């Protein structure tokens, strides 16, 4: 198993509960940078990040453009922006057109992270009702990263993990409980 430094989590409808459970499971000295790409209402800025902050021992923030990605932090993509990961390990924001009816688009963040972070990234696709993230997870595999999808039978809405599994070919198909264990033990395997 490579020396993973970055964890990406993409989710949409039905994913919020498991995201909070995953954050809740991370210890205070968790050494990874965690980047959450969650579909959310475009015009609601308040509340979402606060709700995640309550569940996390790690600092949770919405990154600014060109902010450096630091270990031990949880970043959530701001509403109505796409978020790229740059090769110099900084964030870059964009207001380009929606992708898969979504901004933020999971595909955009995952694909740029695949290219920029290579085998240093583990990416997870959770419950959701469209195909966003499938192409991004495929890029994660293509560039040597670790790809995980929630078991569709375990997901509130199966469409997104099903598409991700089919498109990326990942064999890491795990229940929400197993995903937590997988992420907690990433570099131990």
């Amino acid at each position, binding site marked *: 198993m490579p020396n993973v430094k970055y964890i990406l989590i993409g989710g949409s409808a039905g994913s919020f509960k498991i995201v909070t459970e995953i954050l809740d499971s991370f210890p205070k000295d968790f050494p990874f940078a965690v980047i959450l790409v969650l579909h959310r209402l*475009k*015009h609601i*800025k308040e509340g979402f990040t606060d709700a995640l902050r309550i569940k996390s021992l790690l600092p949770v923030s*919405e*990154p*600014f*453009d*060109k*902010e450096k990605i630091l270990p031990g932090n949880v970043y959530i993509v*701001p509403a*109505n*922006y796409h978020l*790229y*990961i*740059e*090769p110099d390990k*900084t964030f*870059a*924001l*964009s*207001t*380009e*057109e929606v992708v898969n009816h979504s901004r933020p688009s999971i595909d*955009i963040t995952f*694909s*740029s992270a695949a*290219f*920029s972070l290579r085998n240093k990234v583990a990416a997870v696709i959770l419950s959701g009702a469209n195909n966003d993230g499938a*192409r991004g997870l495929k*890029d994660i595999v*293509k*560039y040597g990263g670790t790809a995980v999808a929630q078991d569709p039978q375990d997901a509130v809405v199966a469409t997104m993990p099903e598409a991700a599994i089919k498109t990326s070919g990942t064999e890491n198909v795990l229940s929400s409980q197993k995903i937590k264990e997988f992420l907690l033990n990433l570099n131990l395997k």
Partner: protein
Amino acid sequence: MQDKKFSVSDINHIYNELSDISGIDFSEYAFSFKMHRVLLFAENFNIPTLDDFVYKLNDSEVLASEFLKFIFVPQSEFFRDADFWNYLQSKLLPKLLLKKEVFVHFPECVGGEDFYSFMFFAGLFRSSHISVTVSFPVSDFENKIKSEVFEAKKIKACLKNIEALSGIRNPEDVFFGKENMFKINHLFRGNIFFECCDILKQQHISKFDLVMFRNRMIYYDKNMQDKVLKKVSVSLKKNGILVIGEKEKLNNSAGKFKHLQSNLSVYKKRFF
């Protein structure tokens, strides 16, 4: 093309070719954004490989022009920035419009949305002493920008937002028309000026009271952002106001700007 692996130099090669064709230097644009635009454009136009991409760029002026326009992102989402609307309406404009003449600049403009959103609020004050300069980076944009600025094509879709968030019910203060076709009121039309310019090469003089520069710098790398900000700063009068996107940060190491509102990216130039 999505199945292939790319390198940084593969992508930069395409932009170097485009720079040779267009005269615009893309070397300091954000890399991942550039890569995404190449892959998306290739998909839209069924271009199978990067070699084909380079060949077509050099072979077809039309395709090169289309790609050039494709790189610049017109969406600004001003219509969803309710916090800034409120600030503009209740604080910024009332103060600015106390001046005899107000000079406003929209640099690097590639769509009309920010402009006509702004004009809604300017129109609320029935002010005809606002002079607006709209600058765009590529001459190919001229007709598109003029059309979007004057005709405000997306307004119909935004009316509900405008009413819900600001309480404005009479777009006719600024625009006239019916159904989906709106045009900007002649009262304002004579005070709008257009220019095609390279923001880094242009000689700027300090003439603007307000520079609206929301979500344009996010497509540059950090180095380019700093260079562009210096230029924009020069173009502002003392005490002039700079507005950037809510998730953009100003490099203010020289203390040139005062942050006016903690939850908004609105800054006042303090000195020359």
